[in-house]
């Protein structure tokens, strides 16, 4: 494997992690919620994709999008809004509880077996360019990450909802005092984070063709690692963290002897601990709130 090959792999894996991390980081930035249930947006989306995989693919993706956005908004309305002013620890535990509840509800309904689905097999097929093996889905992952990250940055920095979101993030009480409808702004943040989750779901399922009720959790754990490395609350930090974790995973995949491969994630988490020992606030110093990027 050449260096270039590794770079492409790292960027495509890292792209998914970056999108996950940004989805988590956005909600944290706006309301200080570390949302463990984020993985469930991804997981639920995958099952909707499983059920709709027979449709023309844009229809299937649209179904996933509509369902996951509604699901995320409902999680805010029914659960998180009820504890809006609770301390961060409470919020985190509530999201933990919600995450488990959704997972086991799924196990109850559909069992915990791995499901496979053949979604857009064309794009996961690889092709060769100058000795490099590139899967179409890798390019999509890289492309989607770049486009969505840029779009989000523009949205947050240059739109009305964007500055209202930054205001709610910085000082929710003052935001209310100037008449900002903070519930609407927070709903917008949940919808955007759901959009990112849908992108991750679709690309992940297209790539791996399989899902379990627990795969959302493992992606989310890695997403958290990325946000923590990058600096929770800083969106560029989240993106950077995602790509770094992607690079690390790819590197470990190359370098670790086969019998250590199953423990790859342990090495990823060890790396996080090292990063945090050296830079306790993440690579980009933790900011308590969303800001211009």
């Amino acid at each position: 494997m050449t260096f270039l090959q590794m770079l492409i792999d790292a960027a495509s894996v890292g792209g998914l992690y970056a999108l996950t991390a940004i989805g988590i980081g956005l909600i944290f930035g706006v309301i200080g919620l570390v949302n463990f249930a984020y993985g469930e947006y991804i997981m639920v989306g995958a099952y909707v994709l499983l059920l709709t995989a027979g449709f023309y693919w844009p229809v299937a993706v649209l179904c996933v999008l509509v369902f996951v956005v509604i699901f995320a908004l409902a999680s805010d309305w029914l659960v998180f809004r009820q504890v809006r002013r609770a301390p961060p620890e409470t919020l985190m535990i509530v999201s933990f509880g919600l995450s488990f509840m959704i997972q086991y509800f799924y196990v109850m309904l559909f069992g915990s077996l791995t499901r496979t689905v053949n979604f857009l097999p064309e794009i996961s097929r690889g092709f060769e360019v100058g000795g490099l093996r590139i899967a179409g889905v890798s390019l999509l992952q890289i492309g989607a990450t770049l486009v969505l990250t840029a779009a989000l940055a523009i949205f947050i920095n240059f739109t009305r909802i964007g500055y209202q979101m930054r205001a709610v993030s910085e000082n929710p009480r003052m935001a209310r005092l100037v008449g900002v409808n903070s519930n609407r702004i927070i709903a917008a943040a949940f919808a955007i984070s759901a959009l990112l989750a849908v992108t991750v779901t679709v690309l992940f399922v297209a790539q791996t063709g399989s899902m379990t009720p627990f795969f959302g959790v493992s992606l989310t754990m890695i997403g958290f690692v990325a946000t923590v490395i990058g600096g929770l609350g800083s969106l560029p930090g989240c993106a950077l963290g995602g790509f770094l974790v992607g690079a690390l995973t790819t590197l470990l995949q190359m370098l670790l002897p086969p019998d250590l491969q199953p423990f790859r994630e342990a090495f990823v988490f060890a790396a996080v601990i090292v990063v945090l020992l050296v830079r306790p606030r993440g690579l980009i110093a933790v900011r308590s709130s969303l800001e211009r990027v």
Partner: protein
Amino acid sequence: MRHLDVVGLTVIYGAVRAVANMSIHLDEGETVALIGPNGAGKSSLLLTIAGVVPARSGSIKLRGEDIGSASVEQRVGSGISVVPETRDIFAKLSVHENLLIGASLRRDAAVVKTDIDRMYSLFPRLAERRKQMAGFLSGGEQQMLAIGRALMARPKLLMLDEPSLGLAPIITDKVYETIAELKKSGTSILLVEQNAERAFGVCDRAYIIQAGRVTLEGSPEELAKGGLVEQALFGRAAAGIVRTSPQVETAQ
């Protein structure tokens, strides 16, 4: 016509009774000052009227309508704006965005634009720094911005909490000039001050607030006569005039 009528308002934080059965009112177009020492409950009163601090009991009426259970947003919508003591400008938003966000509930985009230009001519310092993050402004500029942001809502009742706090006298002059202008334009103003002299220069009526209660009320002339304010705020000799009230805890 009565613009604001607060009757028997009580605000309690944990074990602290910040506002104790307080009643104040304000007529349409009137400028009323609330004067009192630190910890008297002035800010709590303002924030309760604005709707971000809950009242334990009592009623708040705006033009005869009870707004006690209205949301903050509804209160802003019915013309209440606050310039908080801590100013609370959005440090990470640009100066321009801070002004824009003051007009969050307005739908008349074109008029909002001309209002922003008006703010810039009122406070030229802000125009120079429109693109800068508001956190980089000086204290005086932040106060101007907080006032400008409140005005962007076109308030009918403007509440200012110690607008001269920590400002150089020359900037305080500018702030009070602005208040006088607003008063001329017919805006009702509820002004919290510790500096009675400043407040008397602009208000029609004042309440002296101590330990969560109104201890004196009158026109600036009445209050200035015979040093009533000084007696109320600092003097023991005033015990006969000022209704004594059980001291509430004041932790500051």
